């Protein structure tokens, strides 16, 4: 009868249990691994043989068949090595292990029978817990990442022999380092809004964007501080809940870019892909349908600098993820769903030369509009706030008082977010003002007569499109929340009206 050992495989950002079945049959000595494994899985047999022989165990001279069940899903990765080795040793009666179905094995073997770290440990450990597999054996280097999951026993080893002697009960497990320290430490960010001086007006609107979950575009001359501001936006977002942090860590684990030996990611991600990024690198894809930048920015900030320089098709690919907060990647081999709930911060120059509004700009109105039209309507439509950023006069910097610190700003944001959480707690898929549907806007953004008049004036003067109307209402709701006001007041509308700098200019453009 074949031996069965538990291991795991990754699909999307979630793992599923793979049963490794090993059988030895009389016949010509050979090893065949079935179950739709990729090249890394097939090559395992060479590592297997070398590492088993390394420790003076016998590699059975029989026909060895290893099956990765379920056999109809493609699998990839080298982390099945350990499970295969254990399975083979049990099957050939070289080791005795009890209760093997309560163990899960993850790890790649070296030729010297050492265990190497793998990617995707966190989702695998979570799956083990879900499926009631109470003991998990992982490479020592992955120990920390695996131990993010509470409620199961994690054992980390460096060598195959250690694993075997532990399984046989020869030597008990000794935890070397104290890994289970408190994972949730609020790390201090490297940047702080304190460093941004003389940009108080813009920061006011940045805080509103963070508080209401509104997407934002900054426009300004080269070197005016757009990127500096963008980098600091994650620092004023409310700190992640444990659930959010696990989600982010899972995505990074699957993508194989988890640093610090796999500790929990507690900082909100900040991703800033360069503008020649391909569609696949942005939304995800490639041979193995890996997560793209938008998923890596999940629960954080996606900063698109020089957004007008991005390929138009690439940008348009963001439309659906921006709407659904997730993205489905379909390839011949895989179909994965990755979460992509991010805050979009974009930056662009206001005109081809970059100095619009200043004396040195000689761009004609037509050229300016043409440049701005590189951003398609549907994308602009998903960005609530358009704000100009002005360069600060360097020599005057000492005159400006120090900027407000990130922690102070974050308090404001959290205050407004708490109000929103309370308001939307019974409504599915809506957590912030930015996500309100038209029906909700009607319910929560009641206007006083004076405010309506003000809006009317704005529409008469600036000829906004109808869809901008909803944006103003959403934004005014956020401004009211920031002040803790239940009603949307006239001053909230007035502030909201200042959020469309680029649209406003349309009316002053002298073009046909």
């Amino acid at each position, binding site marked *: 009868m074949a031996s069965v050992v538990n291991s795991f495989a990754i699909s999307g950002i979630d793992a599923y249990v793979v049963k490794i079945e090993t059988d030895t049959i009389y016949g010509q000595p050979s090893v065949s691994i079935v179950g739709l494994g990729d090249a890394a899985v097939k090559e395992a047999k060479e590592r297997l043989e070398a590492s088993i022989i390394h420790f003076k165990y016998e590699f059975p001279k029989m026909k060895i068949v290893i099956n990765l069940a379920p056999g109809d899903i493609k699998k990839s990765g080298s982390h099945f090595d350990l499970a295969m080795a254990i399975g083979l040793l049990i099957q050939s009666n070289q080791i005795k292990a009890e209760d093997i179905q309560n163990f899960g094995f993850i790890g790649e073997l070296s030729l010297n029978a050492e265990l190497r770290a793998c990617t995707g440990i966190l989702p695998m450990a979570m799956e083990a817990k879900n499926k009631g597999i109470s003991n998990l054996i992982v490479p020592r280097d992955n120990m920390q990442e695996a131990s993010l999951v509470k409620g199961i026993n994690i054992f980390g080893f460096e060598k195959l022999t250690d694993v075997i002697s532990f399984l046989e009960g020869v030597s008990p497990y000794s935890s070397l380092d104290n890994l289970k320290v408190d994972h949730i430490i609020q790390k201090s960010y490297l940047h702080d809004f304190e460093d941004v001086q*003389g*940009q*108080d*007006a*813009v920061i*006011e609107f940045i805080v509103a964007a963070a508080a209401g979950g509104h997407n934002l575009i900054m*426009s*300004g*001359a080269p070197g005016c501080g757009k990127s500096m501001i963008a980098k600091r936006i994650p620092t004023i977002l409310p700190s992640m809940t444990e659930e959010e942090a696990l989600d982010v860590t899972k995505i990074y684990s699957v993508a194989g870019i988890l640093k610090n030996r796999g500790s929990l990611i507690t900082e909100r991600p900040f991703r800033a892909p360069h503008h020649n990024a391909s569609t696949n690198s942005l939304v995800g894809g490639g041979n193995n349908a890996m997560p793209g930048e938008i998923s890596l920015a999940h629960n954080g900030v996606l900063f698109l600098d020089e957004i007008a320089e991005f390929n138009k098709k690439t940008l348009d690919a963001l439309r659906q993820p921006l709407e659904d907060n997730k993205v489905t990647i379909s390839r011949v081999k895989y179909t994965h769903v990755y979460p992509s709930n991010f805050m979009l911060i974009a930056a662009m120059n*206001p*005109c081809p030369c970059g*100095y*619009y*509004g*200043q*004396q040195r*700009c*000689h761009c*004609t*109105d*037509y*050229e300016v509009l*043409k440049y701005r039209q590189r951003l398609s309507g549907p994308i602009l439509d998903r960005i609530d706030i358009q704000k*100009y*950023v*002005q360069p*600060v006069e360097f020599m005057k910097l000492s*005159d*400006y008082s120090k900027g407000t610190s990130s922690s102070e700003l974050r308090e404001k944001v959290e205050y407004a977010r708490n109000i929103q959480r309370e308001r939307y707690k019974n409504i599915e898929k809506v957590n912030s003002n930015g996500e309100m549907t038209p029906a909700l806007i009607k319910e929560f953004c009641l206007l006083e007569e004076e405010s309506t008049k*003000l809006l009317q*004036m*704005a529409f008469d*003067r600036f000829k906004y499109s109808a869809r901008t109307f909803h944006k103003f209402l959403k934004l005014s709701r956020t401004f009211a929340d920031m002040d803790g006001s239940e009603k949307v007041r*006239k*001053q909230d509308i*007035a*502030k909201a*009206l*200042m959020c469309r*700098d680029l649209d*406003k*200019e349309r009316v*002053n453009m*002298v*073009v*046909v």
Partner: protein
Amino acid sequence: MEIYDKEDLIYWIWLSEIRGIGSVTSKALLNVFKTPQNIYKASKEEIMNLHGIGNATTELILNSKSLQKAEDILNKCEKLNIKILTYEDSLYPHEVKTIKKSPIILYYRGKIIENSLGVSIVGARRCTEYGKRVTVEAAEFLAKCNIPVISGMAKGIDGYAHTACLKNNGYTIAILGCGVDICYPKEHKELMEKIIENGAVISQYPPGTKPESKHFPDRNRLISAWCKKLLLVEAGEKSGSLITAKFAKEQNRQVFAVPNCIYSSESVGTNKLIEEGSQIYLKPSQLLLEDYDKQIINKSHSKKTNLTSLEKTIIDNIKDKDITLDELIIKLQQDKSQIFQTISIMELEGKVINVGGVLKNLCLN
């Protein structure tokens, strides 16, 4: 436009297309022979006998008796709905005819009205915000006074002049340095369509002619000829607009130059014109032509604005120089919310304007 005989037009085109025969010679010939057809049919002796016409010119005429090219052009015009205005036409303004070098034939699209002579506005392609503001104000004013705005449909000042005029339902003529079937620069495609709808696009070059630099001085001469007053908004040291101004002076048109900062490279040309004795342009009413109604002027400039105290402080701060919202906040030392609200409302009321993040004053007082 008079109804032309097709036959007749062919000879007009033929005459205008003879290489080496300019409009001056053509006009001299027309003076004697009355119609181009007569010139075509004239014998060598008849032409030779004329005063001022030499052997070479006669040879040129006699050696180019093919009408093929003229027919091709005419067919093209018919296909593209391009109309032709000859020197004899009553819509051809008298004031333009009297210019020595005015062409004997013009191609146009759109509609040429009677009394199409107006005010020309020309200037730099790469203009500044200041130039744009002056141009738009002048063109709007002229449109409201029913004075045609003449320009060259180039980028920058020209384009703004046409656009502002059209937006105020005015009549505008664009004079091109290429065929009227070609849009140059390309970005003015929509503008050209609008001009054809509400005015006219004129060129002395037959359809299909590419915009080449050698065509532009002649176009500039026509722009200056087609006006009573010429407004030069911004011109660098070697600007083509200065050529237009030079022609205008030769043609006894009144030239107005917009003054600007003496260090501004965009205005070296205009400032120099002022030095040389051109009129200094200070307000649109200077552009009025005598025979137009002066009532309208009084209406548009009597708007007074009432300001609250905070609004007044803000206006005082941005009056003399451009200032950003941030600088204003630091300067005023007041509650941010209050300032935001006030500025927002002032923008709505058209008291200030935000251009690229810089606040600019729009109040008159």
